C-alpha cells in the first residue's frame, strides 16, 4: 500500500491532509491524503464503499471532516456547505445533472447571475451570451428550449459551462459519462482538455478504465476508506489498477480460501435451466445480456461498478423496464414483467440497497419476513397468526436472526440481521431462483460467513442462485460459473477451473475497444492488457 506523504506540492491547488470521517462509528475515511495539482486531470477510483463519494463531499463542504485539514489555493479552508466551496472555486458536476429541467437552457446557465439592465433581467443579452458560451462547449442549440429537451450529454455540458463560468479552479466530475453516447464522451474529453489548458484542475470519478487512460494524468485509488495508491496513470497497467481497487494481489490468495463457501459442492451442469434470460436490453445500461441458471447452480455475475450487474438482476425480475429480451422460468416465458409476476413464477431478488429497496423500516421483524408471503399465510384476507408465527420462528431460528423478538422494528436491527430478515422474506416463498445483489455488503464478519454458508446450502438444495458481489473472493469461491459484464455487455464467462481471480481480473481488464463476446475459456488468457504484464503473464493460468 502506498500512503502518500503530505509533502506540500508547490503547484497544488487543493490538498486534503489526514482527513478522517466516520458515521455512527463506521469509518468512511481514514487518514486520507489527496493532492490535486493545478491543471491536472486526476482520476479518483474505487469500488462502492471505498470512500470516494465521502471524500468528494468532504472536499465540497457537504460533510465536515472529523480530523485533518483541507487546503485550497494556499489557505486552510473549512467549507460549511457546497455553496461556500462553489463560491471559493470548487464546482461539482454530479452524476444526475443538477440543473432545473423545466427552465430554459440559458436560464439554467445564468440562474442567480442573470445579466440585468435597469434592474430587470436582460433576457435578450442572456440568451445571446448563453448561445455563444455553449457553442464553445460544443453545444449548438436554441437556448430558449427547456433544458429537459436536450440530450443528457448536452445537459452535462451546460452544467459544465455553468461550473466553469463561476470561476471554478477545481471541477469535480462524478461519473460524467455514465449516460453519454460515445460521441458525447469525445466532446466531454475535448472540453476537459481545454479546462486543463486554462489551468483548471479536474477530479474525474469514473469506473470506465478506458476513459481514465484517455483523459487523466494521475490516479488515486481508494479502498475501505483509505487511499491505497496515488501516481501517474501512464505507467500503471490495468491489471494492477484493478487489483488495487479490489484489494487482491492476484498471487496472494492462490490457495487459501477466504470465505465460508464450500469448495467441494457439486455444481449441476446438466438439465434444463431454472432461469434463462435472453437478450435483455435496457437503454444506456444493458445491451443484449443473456444468461442461464440451472437448478443447484450458483452463477456469479462479475464486473466493475457500473458494468450493469444490478441492472441485469432488476431487468430479470421486471423491476427495470426492459426494451427487449425475454425471461424463461423452468421453460415457461414470463409474459407479464413485474416483480410480483416474477415472484409468482419463483424468481426473487435480494436488492442491493437494503434501506431504499429492501426493508420496511418501521414494521416489525415478523411483518417484514411475512410481507411477500402474506397471500399464503392468510385465508380470506385474514392473516393466520399461528401460521405466521410458525414461519417467522422457523426462519428466525434457521437464519439465526438476532432481534429482541419478532416484534422489534426492523429499522433498529443491525445490517446483518436486516439482510437475514430480507433473505427470510424470500426464502419463505420457496423460490426456484434467487438473485442476490451484494448479499454481504455492509454486514459484519460473522453474519457474512453465515450468509455465505446459507447460499451454499440453498444451492445444495437445488435452488438456482445468481450472485452479484464486488468482493472478488466471494464471487470466485461462491460461484460455479462466472458471467463477466462490462459496460452492459457480457464479455466473457468463466467455468470450472477457470473460475479464478487471475482469470476474472484478466476478463475485467480487457481493453474496452474490444467488445466481442468472449468464448468460454478464452477470456483472461489472450487479452492484450498492456505491454508489460510481466508478473502475471509469467504464471501459467488455468
Amino acid at each position: 500500500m502506498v500512503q502518500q506523504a503530505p509533502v506540500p506540492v508547490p503547484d497544488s491547488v487543493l490538498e486534503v491532509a489526514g482527513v478522517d470521517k466516520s458515521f455512527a462509528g463506521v469509518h468512511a475515511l481514514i487518514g486520507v491524503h489527496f493532492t490535486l495539482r493545478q491543471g491536472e486531470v486526476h482520476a479518483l477510483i474505487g469500488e462502492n464503499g471505498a470512500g470516494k463519494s465521502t471524500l468528494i463531499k468532504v472536499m465540497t463542504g457537504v460533510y465536515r471532516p472529523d480530523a485533518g485539514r483541507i487546503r485550497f489555493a494556499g489557505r486552510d479552508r473549512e467549507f460549511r456547505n457546497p455553496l461556500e466551496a462553489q463560491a471559493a472555486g470548487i464546482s461539482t458536476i454530479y452524476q444526475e445533472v443538477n440543473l432545473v429541467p423545466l427552465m430554459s437552457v440559458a436560464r439554467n446557465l445564468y440562474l442567480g447571475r442573470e445579466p440585468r439592465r435597469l434592474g430587470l433581467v436582460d433576457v435578450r443579452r442572456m440568451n445571446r451570451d448563453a448561445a455563444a458560451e455553449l457553442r464553445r462547449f460544443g453545444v449548438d442549440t436554441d437556448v430558449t428550449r427547456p433544458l429537459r429537451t436536450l440530450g443528457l450529454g448536452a445537459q452535462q455540458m451546460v452544467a459544465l459551462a455553468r461550473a466553469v463560468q463561476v470561476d471554478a479552479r477545481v471541477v469535480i466530475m462524478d461519473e460524467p459519462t455514465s449516460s453519454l453516447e460515445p460521441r458525447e464522451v469525445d466532446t466531454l474529453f475535448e472540453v476537459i482538455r481545454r479546462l486543463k489548458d486554462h489551468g483548471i484542475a479536474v477530479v474525474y470519478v469514473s469506473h470506465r478504465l478506458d476513459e481514465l487512460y484517455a483523459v487523466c494524468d494521475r490516479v488515486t485509488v481508494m479502498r475501505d476508506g483509505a487511499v491505497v495508491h496515488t501516481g501517474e496513470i501512464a505507467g500503471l497497467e490495468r491489471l494492477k489498477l484493478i487489483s488495487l481497487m479490489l484489494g487482491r494481489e492476484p498471487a496472494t490468495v492462490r490457495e487459501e480460501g477466504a470465505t465460508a463457501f464450500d469448495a467441494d459442492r457439486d455444481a449441476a451442469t446438466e438439465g434444463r435451466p431454472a432461469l434463462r434470460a435472453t437478450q435483455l436490453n435496457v437503454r444506456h445500461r444493458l445491451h443484449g445480456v443473456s444468461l442461464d441458471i440451472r437448478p443447484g447452480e450458483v452463477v456469479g455475475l462479475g464486473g466493475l461498478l457500473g458494468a450493469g450487474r444490478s441492472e441485469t438482476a432488476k431487468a430479470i425480475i421486471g423491476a427495470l423496464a426492459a426494451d427487449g429480451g425475454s425471461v424463461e422460468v423452468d421453460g415457461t416465458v414470463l409474459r407479464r414483467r413485474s416483480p410480483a409476476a416474477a415472484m409468482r413464477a419463483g424468481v426473487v431478488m435480494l436488492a442491493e440497497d437494503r434501506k431504499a429497496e429492501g426493508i420496511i423500516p418501521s414494521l416489525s421483524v415478523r411483518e417484514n419476513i411475512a410481507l411477500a408471503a402474506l397471500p399464503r399465510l392468510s385465508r380470506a384476507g385474514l392473516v393466520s397468526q399461528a401460521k405466521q408465527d410458525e414461519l417467522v420462528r422457523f426462519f428466525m431460528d434457521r437464519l439465526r436472526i438476532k432481534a429482541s423478538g419478532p416484534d422489534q422494528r426492523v429499522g433498529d436491527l443491525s445490517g446483518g440481521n436486516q439482510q437475514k430478515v430480507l433473505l427470510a422474506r424470500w426464502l419463505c416463498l420457496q423460490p426456484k431462483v434467487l438473485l442476490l445483489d451484494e448479499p454481504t455488503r455492509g454486514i459484519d464478519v460473522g453474519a457474512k460467513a453465515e450468509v455465505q454458508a446459507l447460499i451454499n446450502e440453498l444451492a445444495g438444495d437445488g435452488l438456482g442462485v445468481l450472485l452479484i458481489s464486488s468482493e472478488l473472493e466471494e464471487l470466485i469461491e461462491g460461484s460455479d460459473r462466472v458471467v463477466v459484464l462490462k459496460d452492459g455487455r457480457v464479455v466473457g464467462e468463466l467455468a470450472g477451473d477457470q473460475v479464478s481471480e487471475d482469470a476474472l481480473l484478466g476478463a475485467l481488464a480487457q481493453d474496452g475497444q474490444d467488445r466481442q463476446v468472449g468464448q468460454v475459456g478464452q477470456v483472461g488468457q489472450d487479452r492484450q492488457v498492456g505491454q508489460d504484464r510481466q508478473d502475471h503473464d509469467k504464471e501459467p493460468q488455468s
Partner: protein
Amino acid sequence: MTTLAWTGAIRDRDRLLRLLQEYGVYAALAVLFLVAVALDGSFVSSGNVRIQLFQVAPTLLVALGMALVIGTEGIDLSVGAVVALAAAVVPLYLGYGLAPALLLALLLGAATGAVGGAMVAFARVQPIVATLSLMIGVRGLAEIVNGNSAKPVTDAALLGLGSDSFSGVPLMAWIAALCALVVGFVVRRTTFGRRLVAIGDNRQASRLAGLPVRRVLLTVYVVSGVLAALAGVMIVGHGAEADPANQGLNLELNAITAVVVGGTPLTGGRVRVLGTVAGALFMQLITAVLTQHDVPNSYTQIVEAAIICCAVYASQERGTR
C-alpha cells in the same frame, strides 16, 4: 436534500417529540377531561356526554378512512364533498326505504373514492391534487342534485339512525366504535392492512416485494369514500335535513386534524387507530369546553389551528426516522 448530519444536541429534543407523538394524545385527552370536569361538574352528565358523542361520531368515521389514506402517504380532501353527495341522494331514494338509499349513498362514496384512487394509483397524480378536484366538483354535483335549498327529512328509520340511543349511547357512536374496531382489526390482522402500511413506509421496497401497490392504493381511497358517505347519511339523520351546501364543510380538515393529533405521521407508514379515536375525542372535547365556557367560536378556531400546527410539527419525520 443532502443529508447533513446535524446530530448531537437535537437528539434529546427528538426523543421528547417522539414520546409526545406516541402517548401525547392520550395524556392530553386525560388532562383535558379532568380540566373540563373540574371547571364544570355537569360535564360528565349523561346528557352532555351523549351530545358530545353525537357530534364526534361522523368526524370519527371520516377520520378512520383518512387515517388509512394517510398511512399510505396520501391525503383525501374529498371526504367533505362525499358527505354532501350522500346528503343529496339519500332523500331522493328514501321512498324505497332506508336500506336502498343508504346503499346508494355508500356506492356513490365508493365511486368517488375510486375516481380519486385511480388518479393516485394509476395516473400517479399527487393525492392532494386528485382529491382537491373531487372536493370542488363533487360538492357542486351534490348541490345540483339537491337543488338550492336544504330539504327536511322525515323518514323515521333515518331519523332513528341519527338520534336513537342504545344502552344510553347514541347509535351513531356505536356504529363509529364498531367501524373503529373493524379498521383496527384490518390494520393489524389482515393482508390488506399489512400491505397498506408497508406501501406507506417504503413504496419502492413494497413494489419489489411483489405487493399489489396500485390495488391497495385504490382500495384505500374507496374505503375512505364509503366511510365518508356513511358519515354523511348519519349527519342527515341527526340534523333531520339534507343540506349539501353546508353539511360536511371543513370535515376533511377536522378528520385530518384528528388523525394527526392522534400521532399518525403525514409521511405514512403508520396507522394509529386508537390514537385517531383519541384525537377525534380530543378535538371534540376542546371545542365543547371552549364553547361551554362562552369562549367565542373565533378563538376556538384559532386554538384548533394552533393545535394542528403543533401536532404536525411533533409528528414530523421522527415517525420514520
